[in-house]
């Protein structure tokens, strides 16, 4: 019954959307196709740049006439001539030197234009099409491989984007190889829905969802983009504003990252490239712990002070040791950190005949962590193949296969993590018991036992594949159909034997998970590109298309406990076993169209619209519509601008549009559900789990962008500037509802988030002589994030300590703490800000004290070449963010944590009247907890260490990478039959300038939740790495 009533609405809607776009298309073809039919001989040809890449929009005319054409997306042109041969072709394209070619007979010609090195003339891949940058009204950044490959220690391309592109904030959450990263384009748009951009690799929408299930203490376990070998990548394009992203509709609100991998070029000899590198990594800094005697002195002092506070004689206090000096110090950290090795091998072959092109890439990466026993290994293979079957039909495929292996080791917020077990245990406590067995204290495991016995494997198999066919219906009208698959499968096997605490009680425990994420996409795109009129004054670039997208997630798991011996690890041999399985599936259907019109190379106006229907939403509000529009003015084409003789290029652009978001919420988020997961007395039960919301619909981001790009000083200085204003409304928010309802939250469209910012970058050629050149690239981005509307405050983070808060009028990722004003130099007690001025310290006195979002991020790259040497220095910087140092939260505890040792900072505590410090007097007294300036709140009490004194400035400037390379002279290599040999040495994270007191300011330990950024919690720091390598091209 429900199906029937539902059928007509949804069906008609679908048809209507399909019809809309096809009507749009037929209008286009009707208007423009008919206008160009002519008679006469047809001249064909192709315009290329020096790198044999197509030049779009080059004007080709017969000299002395008005007959001519403008090249299309492939650099091809053709037009009808009435003149008799020979004729002289005149070719002009912005950024290239004009060229004349004599043509004696009508054969296809290939004309190569030499470069004027103008950055605006790059061709970029944008949504469903390729466009010349000068016509694009959207904010788009493209990065080429050579810009990306300077950090040899990175395992994924996403890490390589750090500090390279404006508006993009990339943070490696930990120093674990293959570990998770935080990637945000122009700030955080959402609270409960996804905030990661859409990643598209060669037209395949790929999933960036982590699949590893092994618990890591609220750290996101892995970066699924590390499945792609960065060496295979040709370039990465980042679409930031609404005009560029709206064509992706509901998927585009968080920005789009388009990755294009290398493809062969037609009629080129096979090029074989071999790269080998090896790196050594170390922690740049280690934790400073108090030694054994110091720890005991602190603990004793706390016990005596507590006795005094309780009105007792301090001599009655229970001391750790009457003679602290006699205690030994056990250094556990040295067992945990090591020098880690990284090996990378990459072999690729590319080339092509006149019909087909190929690229084959094979890669191997083995990366150890500086913290035992984590490691990451990747085997990758890629095949990209294109074949021009006829001059109208081209087929091709892009196929990526990779296998990853991770030794997953938990740190972060997990008492049985390796770092935790070494860091938190008091230093005077022995590592082994007197009988030689592993000693354990409090909730912590023994670190040596963990290092030797942790056995958590995660094996990933990733297939990203795409087949496509292009059909040129007419030279101007092309249809592409593409079928894609992203299949990510992770198989985990974990075994805790009886030597580690996770396996002791159960006599060995094991778990195994097989998790699959499958995204299937089909798309059809019909593209129309045409220039017409005198000198090709009018240029049209339009497309219409549809996609159908289906996402499947399924997971099966088994656990076993009670094993006969530690050598039997198969779950089938366990005494008790359990199994789980889960599955969810969602679908998305989309129709889209985009058109741009350019007049005389000067003015471009464009617009797009997309309609999306999602199975996640309520039947009432399933479809969302996302329009956008923009204008571009190539002012440098104007005579009056040329007369100024200032700008070699000047482009102004503006855009506005809507994009949507439906990721991150459950596949069944709009349905009223009862869960079948509960059981009692071996009988399955059901219980209410989710309230229905048939009105649930798209979260929408409205974005306005103004930008300019210009180059001056004969193109030696190119500048790009953008301002944007994003407003995300109808947030897909898990609005807290009263617990007395039996539910905790209700997913509804409520709330709004704003992100505003500017982006600035320049590229300058400082020196360019025959032997020596120096170029600089600088970029800086500012983003201001603000929650504009929220149902009520949502406090979260740090395992229920709720250190982070979402609060209207403040940024996402704000910290919610008691603000310590000072430590009273008379009493030694901490005094906090009494926000509500009631004379007491209560929970009402918690307040927002800063957030984890940087005010500014950016990077500065300098490349110096002298003859065959090249030196590349890359500095990245982050300014204005705060980090909650959980290591200090736990280890500067004043004695309240009986099982946890102290960081050196605890030694700065107040000891006697007159001491000026921010670390209060040691005590565990718990009376009068509401008294401000009372000793109960120094470390415990109402404040319970939720004090701003552990909130640090996270700003840093870092020499992220420095590399020196040398190309062997051709005279030598040619003799060996080698076309190029490059040797290099590079260093990563060599120098870091920061006030942050922890190991590394680039950290986010609670990254599994997007709203708890900026914690440092027993996390492996970014390593300092030295890499040497060789790159040989045959």
């Amino acid at each position, binding site marked *: 019954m429900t199906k*029937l009533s539902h059928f007509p609405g949804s*069906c008609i809607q*679908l048809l209507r959307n399909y019809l809309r776009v096809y009507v749009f298309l037929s209008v286009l073809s009707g208007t423009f196709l008919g206008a160009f039919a002519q008679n006469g001989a047809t001249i064909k040809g192709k315009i290329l740049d020096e790198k044999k890449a197509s030049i779009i929009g080059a004007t080709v005319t017969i000299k002395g006439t008005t007959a001519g054409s403008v090249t299309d997306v492939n650099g091809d042109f053709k037009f009808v001539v009435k003149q008799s041969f020979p004729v002289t072709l005149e070719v002009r394209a912005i950024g290239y030197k004009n060229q004349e070619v004599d043509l004696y007979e009508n054969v296809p010609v290939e004309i190569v234009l030499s470069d004027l090195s103008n950055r605006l003339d790059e061709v970029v891949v944008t949504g469903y099409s390729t466009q010349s940058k000068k016509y694009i009204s959207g904010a788009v950044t493209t990065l080429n491989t050579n810009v990306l490959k300077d950090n040899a220690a990175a395992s994924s391309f996403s890490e390589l984007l750090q500090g390279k592109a404006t508006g993009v904030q990339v943070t490696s959450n930990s120093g674990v190889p293959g570990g998770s990263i935080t990637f945000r384009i122009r700030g955080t748009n959402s609270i409960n829905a996804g905030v990661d951009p859409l990643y598209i690799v060669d037209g395949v929408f790929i999933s960036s969802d982590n699949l590893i299930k092994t618990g890591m203490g609220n750290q996101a376990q892995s970066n699924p983009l590390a499945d792609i070998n960065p060496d295979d990548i040709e370039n990465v394009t980042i679409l930031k504003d609404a005009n560029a992203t709206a064509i992706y509709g509901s998927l585009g609100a968080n920005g789009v990252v388009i990755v294009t991998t290398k493809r062969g070029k037609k009629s080129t000899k096979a090029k074989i490239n071999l790269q080998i590198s090896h790196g050594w990594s170390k922690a740049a800094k280690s934790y400073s712990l108090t030694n054994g005697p110091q720890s005991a002195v602190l603990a004793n002092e706390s016990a005596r002070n507590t006795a005094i506070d309780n009105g007792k004689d301090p001599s009655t206090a229970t001391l750790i040791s009457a003679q602290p000096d006699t205690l030994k110090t056990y250094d556990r950290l040295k067992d945990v950190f090591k020098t880690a090795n990284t090996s990378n091998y990459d072999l690729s072959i590319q080339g092509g005949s006149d019909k087909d092109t190929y690229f084959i890439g094979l890669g191997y990466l083995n990366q150890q962590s500086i913290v035992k026993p984590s490691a990451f290994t990747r085997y990758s293979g890629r095949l990209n193949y294109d074949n021009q079957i*006829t001059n*109208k039909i081209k087929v091709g495929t892009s196929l990526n296969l990779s296998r990853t292996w991770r030794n997953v080791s938990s740190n972060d917020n997990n*008492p049985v993590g390796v770092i935790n077990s070494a860091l*938190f245990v008091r230093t005077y406590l022995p590592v082994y018991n007197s009988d030689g067995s592993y000693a354990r*204290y*409090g*909730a*912590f495991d023994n670190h040596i036992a963990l290092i030797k016995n942790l056995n958590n494997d995660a094996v990933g198999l990733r297939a990203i594949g795409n087949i496509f*066919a292009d*059909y040129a219906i007419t030279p101007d009208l092309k*249809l592409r*159909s593409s079928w894609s698959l992203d299949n990510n499968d992770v198989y985990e096997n974990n075994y805790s034997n009886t030597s580690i*605490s996770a*396996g*002791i*009680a*159960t006599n060995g425990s094991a778990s195994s998970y097989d998790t699959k994420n499958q995204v299937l996409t089909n798309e*059809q795109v019909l593209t129309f590109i045409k220039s017409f009129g005198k000198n090709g004054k009018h240029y049209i670039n339009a497309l219409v298309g549809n996609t*159908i997208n289906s996402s499947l997630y399924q997971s099966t798991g088994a656990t076993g406990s009670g094993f006969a011996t530690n050598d039997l690890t198969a779950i089938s041999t366990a005494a*008790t076993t*359990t199994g789980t399985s889960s*599955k969810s599936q969602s679908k998305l*259907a989309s129709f889209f169209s985009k058109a741009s019109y350019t007049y005389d190379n000067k003015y471009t106006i464009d617009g797009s619209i997309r309609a999306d229907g*999602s*199975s996640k939403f309520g039947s009432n509000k399933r479809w969302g519509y996302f329009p956008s529009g923009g204008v571009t003015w190539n002012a440098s084409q104007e005579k009056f601008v040329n007369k100024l003789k200032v700008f070699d290029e000047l482009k102004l652009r503006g855009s506005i549009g809507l994009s949507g978001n439906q990721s991150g919420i459950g*596949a*069944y988020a709009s349905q*009223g*559900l*009862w869960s*079948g997961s*509960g*059981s*009692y*007395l*071996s*009988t*399955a*039960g*059901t*219980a*209410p789990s*989710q*309230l229905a919301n048939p009105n649930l619909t798209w979260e929408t981001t409205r974005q306005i962008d103004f930008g300019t790009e210009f180059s001056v000083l004969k193109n030696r200085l190119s500048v790009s500037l953008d301002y944007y204003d994003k407003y995300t409304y109808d947030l897909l928010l898990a609005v*807290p*509802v009263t*617990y*007395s*309802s*039996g539910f905790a939250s209700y997913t509804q469209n409520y709330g709004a988030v704003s992100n505003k910012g500017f982006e600035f970058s320049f590229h300058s050629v400082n020196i360019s002589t025959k032997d020596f050149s120096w170029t600089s690239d600088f970029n800086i981005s500012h983003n201001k994030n603000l929650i504009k509307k929220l*149902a009520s405050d949502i406090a979260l983070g740090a395992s*229920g300590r709720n250190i982070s808060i979402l609060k209207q009028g403040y940024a996402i990722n704000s910290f919610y703490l008691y603000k310590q004003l000072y430590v009273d130099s008379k009493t030694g007690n901490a005094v906090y800000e009494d926000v509500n001025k009631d004379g007491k310290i209560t929970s009402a006195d918690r307040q927002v004290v800063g957030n984890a979002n940087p005010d500014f991020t950016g990077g500065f790259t300098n490349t110096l070449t002298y003859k065959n040497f090249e030196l590349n220095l890359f500095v990245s910087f982050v300014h204005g963010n705060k980090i909650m140092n959980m290591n200090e939260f736990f280890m500067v505890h004043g004695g*309240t944590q009986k*099982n*946890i040792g102290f960081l050196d900072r605890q030694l700065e505590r107040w000891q006697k009247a007159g001491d000026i410090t921010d670390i209060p007097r040691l005590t565990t007294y*718990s009376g009068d907890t509401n008294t401000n300036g009372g000793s109960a709140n120094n470390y415990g009490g109402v404040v319970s*260490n939720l004090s701003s004194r552990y909130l640090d400035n996270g700003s840093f400037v870092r020499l992220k990478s420095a590399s020196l390379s040398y190309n062997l002279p051709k005279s030598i290599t040619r003799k060996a039959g080698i076309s190029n040999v490059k040797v290099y040495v590079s260093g990563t994270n060599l120098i870091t300038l920061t006030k942050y007191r922890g190991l590394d300011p680039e950290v986010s330990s609670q990254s599994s939740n997007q709203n708890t950024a900026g914690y440092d919690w027993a996390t492996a720091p970014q390593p300092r790495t030295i890499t040497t390598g060789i790159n040989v091209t045959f």
Partner: protein
Amino acid sequence: MLHSNFQKNTDMKKTRYFIGISLLALTLVLNSCGSFFDEKSNGNISAETAITDAGTARAAIIGAYDEVQNYYSSYTTLGTITADNVVFNGSLSQYLQLDQISIPVDNVVTVAAYQGIYQAINSANTIISLVPSVSDPALTTTEKNKILGEAYFIRALGYFDLGRGWGGVQLRLTPTKDIASLKGVKRSTLDQTYDQVLSDLIKAEQLLPDVTASDSNLRNRAQKASVRALRARLHLYRQQWSDAENYASQVIAETTKYNLVTPYKAFFTAPYLTSESVLELTFSTNDKNSFWNLWYLSNLGGQYTLKPSDSFVTKVKDPTIGGSRSTLVAGTSPNVYGVLYNSTAGADPFYLIRIAELYLIRTEARAQQNNLTGALSDLNVVRNRAGLVNSTATTQVDILTAIENENNIEFAFEAHRWFDLVRTKRVGAVLGVTNTNLWLFPIPGSDILSDPDVTQNPGY
């Protein structure tokens, strides 16, 4: 010419083929048009069809028990670490806050318990609302009544546990179907909350069967005796001494079903469901109770967050106070740990009501009614089972003190001590927490923000 024609022909064929492929996708959408967006979960059922027949009604009451299971680990923590038998020994500050009775409004354990109880209540409300109208021949009136009786019992237990922890709470008696219907329910007084508990217990007693001693679910699903036992406890909390005595006696009288077991540790040693239990929540390796983890040493695979206090260890190991109840702890100083929850395979039950409690309820009720002989006789039953001699207390005051101490040791690691001291207003005298505002847990802070009808307990 020929060649080009041929080319054209194949091209046209390819064109048709190509357009065919591209239209295939459209066809796929249209063919499956009606159901294209209809995705259903395989782990959930629609709320609209959640209770429609015998099978779903049975599953719903099982689900309600599961939710009682879910909240009892945090609830047991609330009843123990807050008092003097158990101290904080871990690194998780939510337990430190409870130990220090310095509980913020977002304390994880109080929030989890509060939320969990209301989840169970919402399940019970749904059953109470929907099961009467189920018409399925497979669901007999007897079974229907049993399911309804259990739902009333679970709701009574939920509101009782809320009342003794948070005071009078919002009484929600209908299932939550949407957000709008939640408005306008203010907090009740503690008396009103307890009145609701009583009313539900009366209905439950009418509806539930009086099962035989051999019934396999005698001790882990509600039936008449479990209702009476909870009712005895309710009357004790409300100081309705004769009712408390009366209902405790009714349960104690069922000697074919309930006896004190010896040795003391027999009831928390597998096989469980001993005759000591009036109601316990059964767990198994497939439905794990991981509460042991909070008590066990890390050397034994636990977290050791909840640690028996030195003063308790001294008492329980004193043969004149603890007797055979010293088996509640194991290990040697300083690493003494509690072993009431000891199944590392996860099969530990939660002991909701033991027959020992009914003796101690009746003791107290009798002592309060000045039946000192009767009181002593019940007190000594419990003492003797632990291998202790009879109590030497003689005056009413001394006997009441003796009862308090006996309760303390007998139910050391169950959800008793804190609530007993709050009930007898002895928290200040015994634990030194003189600020009576702190004798009630805070209402979760997020509820204060999300629900304008709820008010916070004073002092938070």
